[in-house]
């Protein structure tokens, strides 16, 4: 089944994407920054969706693999002088390799045990960034990350495509400094990752993963090697996380061992469930809703402070986990199949009109 059926749906998609690309032109920086955060989260959750949604392997290590990606890309850019756009895929792949290592316990265990194995990634990887190779990784202090740039040669003493001359580099340079510019990178990566994730779900690989999720013994009987496919899923999930982490690091311009942490891993799982496990649209819906809730928590906190003046300090810190946790509980009890399922029902109802209720 394809996602899009009709020509007008393509038009809607294209107009929507164009609207997102043009977002910095007509909306405030904070909106752009919000959309940017959503986009980066979408990539991470799409990876998790392949591992958890399709393959059924629960992981609390996604943020750790983001950390790997962030550090890898930063080091490639700062130590080896690579351009960010080459560093990004390599960083994603290196995160994938680390993901493979932590996927190895899936050889022997599943369920809770696997959760614990991935949780250990969440402890061990940040610890490594803090305690090993201090001269390169700068310990707990972390690294300042350069802004992604596009360099173009100077032609006839002129700089084209809106680039600016940079005397130090001796070239025309376009800097993706703030979210206004960075959002274009995030959008392209999200579009790519959506296409990849969606195609994985429709390929032999995706069907094999689903069969492992639904019944691994039966899958094995059908000639699918569950272990190999699980490792593939771990790899893919970590690659997505690595890409997200690299983008996050270059967008924040700083990374350390706690930039993305256990709470983020929990948030990603939550986004996936809220959005809908094992669906292409789930990560998009989930990331948007959960980060929107975070924003709402931030906006609500002055109000909470006015009600509870004694605890003014922690209002935002209290509301965020509270609202997220409650939303997740509500979804788990009342709509465990997530927003994507609800969306499908709505679409079906629309198509069936006027016969649907």
């Amino acid at each position, binding site marked *: 089944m394809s996602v899009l059926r009709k020509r007008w749906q393509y038009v809607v998609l294209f107009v929507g994407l164009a609207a997102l690309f043009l977002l910095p032109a007509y909306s405030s920086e904070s909106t752009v920054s919000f959309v940017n955060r959503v986009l980066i989260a979408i990539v991470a959750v799409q990876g998790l969706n392949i591992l958890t949604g399709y393959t059924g392997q629960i992981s609390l290590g996604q943020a750790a693999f983001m950390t790997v990606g962030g550090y890898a890309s930063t080091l490639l850019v700062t130590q080896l002088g690579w351009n960010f756009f080459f560093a990004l895929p390599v960083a994603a792949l290196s995160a994938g390799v680390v993901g493979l290592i932590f996927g190895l316990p899936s050889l022997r265990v599943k369920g809770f045990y696997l959760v614990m194995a991935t949780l250990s990634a969440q402890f061990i990887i940040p610890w490594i960034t803090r305690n090993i190779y201090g001269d390169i990784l700068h310990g*707990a202090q972390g690294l300042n990350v350069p802004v992604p740039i596009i360099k173009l040669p100077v032609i006839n003493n*002129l700089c084209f495509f809106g680039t600016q001359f940079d005397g130090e580099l001796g070239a025309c340079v376009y800097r993706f400094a703030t*979210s206004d510019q960075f959002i274009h990178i995030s959008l392209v990566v999200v*579009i790519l990752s959506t296409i990849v994730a969606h195609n994985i779900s429709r390929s032999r690989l995706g069907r094999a993963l689903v069969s492992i999720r639904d019944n691994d013994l039966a899958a094995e009987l059908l000639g699918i090697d569950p272990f190999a496919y699980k490792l593939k899923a771990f790899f893919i999930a970590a690659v997505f996380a690595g890409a997200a982490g690299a983008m996050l690091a270059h967008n924040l*311009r700083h990374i350390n061992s706690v930039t993305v942490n256990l709470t983020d891993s929990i948030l990603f799982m939550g986004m996936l469930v809220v959005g809908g496990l094992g669906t292409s649209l789930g990560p998009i819906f989930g990331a948007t809703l959960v980060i929107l809730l975070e924003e709402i928590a931030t906006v609500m906190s002055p109000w909470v402070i006015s009600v509870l003046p004694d605890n003014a300090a*922690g209002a935002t810190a209290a509301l965020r986990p509270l609202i997220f946790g409650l939303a997740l509980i509500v979804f788990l009890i009342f709509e465990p199949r997530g927003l994507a399922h609800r969306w499908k029902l709505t679409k079906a109802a629309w198509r069936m009109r006027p016969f649907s209720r």
Partner: protein
Amino acid sequence: MRKNPLLILLSIVFLALLLSGCASAAEEPTPAPPPEPTEVPVVEPVAEPTEAPAEEPMEEPTAVPTEEPVVEPTAAPTEEPEPMLRTDNLEGETIHLYHFGDLSGPYAAITGPLVFGMQDAVNALNASGGIRGAMLDVQFADTAGSVDEAVAAYDRFTSEDDNVLAMITYGSGEAEALASRFVEDQIVNLTAGFSAEAFYGPGSGYTFGLGPIYPDQLGYFLDWLVANWDEAKPASAGDEINLAYLSWPGAFGQGALTTESRAYAESLGVNIVAEEIYDLSPSADTTTALLNAQAAGANVIWTNTLAFGPAALMNGIGALGLQGQFVLAGDNWAMDLATYAFVSDPSLAVGLITPFPYLWWNDADNPGIQAAQELFDANERPAGAHNVGYLLLLAGVDLLRQSIEVAIDTVGFDALSGQALYDALTTMGPIQALDGVIRVDYSDGSRSPHNVQLRQIQGGPDAFNVLQDWTDMPDLRPAGE
């Protein structure tokens, strides 16, 4: 069907390229007067070589200068005084200030009083007529100690306000991570996180400290220690000074140990024999760190921590019966009343030595301290806020008031900008904020104070007595500056 995603993708990439072209041209900042070259060490991204006007057609290529950017001879904005320069009677105007810090994470214990100080100082200033009649408006964001929250807050503030003058930050981590943004957006950052990286790292330049950077503090203490070792040394110690660096992980905790401060310690003949990390938590167990330091032969401990950080060490020393075996020293934040909430026996705190870049509540003859005490009492702040953070921010707001007034006098209220404030701070020379509670001088190219006291806890709470009066510190700024 198969081809379509690719098609979409290609067109989108094309669109993106097209748009990025537009975006940059549209956002081209209007040419600002180039900052005085001697003061700004970093490459100013806005100091454009070309005088490209903003209304240029979007796809028009920009010209590349053939020669080096012209350094305009101190094009001070004062040269062309406008007749309408508004410097007084600013009633009805508002000056926005923004601050963010950790009110719900691990550093909450110190940020709380800092924020109280900020609020009380601003309220008092507004009540007394504001700055030339203009009211101060302050917005706060809680970052829970995480850098990405700080970046989000920064983005939110800058998108709400095109002309942010100054932001006040409290953490080393966020000051470091945002340093380059402050430069790019020309926003003065007044900070209470004194990591050298934030002030002098690559791409920094708009970050000003209310206190000296941590490597300077360590060097300053070592200077004193070497000169006074015979009197200060523990009874059991020999002539060798063996320093153990026991601290928290993170930008702040590790902030005093830099290449420069290590080299300086070596040049003084001080051995750094142990570097141990303990948890950023009041319940941190420091016994292993202490035992290892002891086993390594340490007789001096430096801790770059605050509130419960030194307390954890003091409790550990008490629990292990190691009293009198170490000279305990730390950064300026380590000597604070907040420590007493976590130390099991106040006598354990006696002997702590730290650099002290401000006056203290017990300097009651100072009018600034008296004013602070009155303000504190009038606002009925909790006893826990009667500490360094509160005092420092009262002084910080006074520093801002003075520099904003100078900036208004120079460029007029309507041209007030972060750049103008920067110029004011770097040209004012020695500034005594809040009647000398803090003393800074940003005119010599440094953006952190260099003249401090050394104090020691001698007796109960508040007995933070002067061991060495205001003296200059060694300059351990990172190389490259």
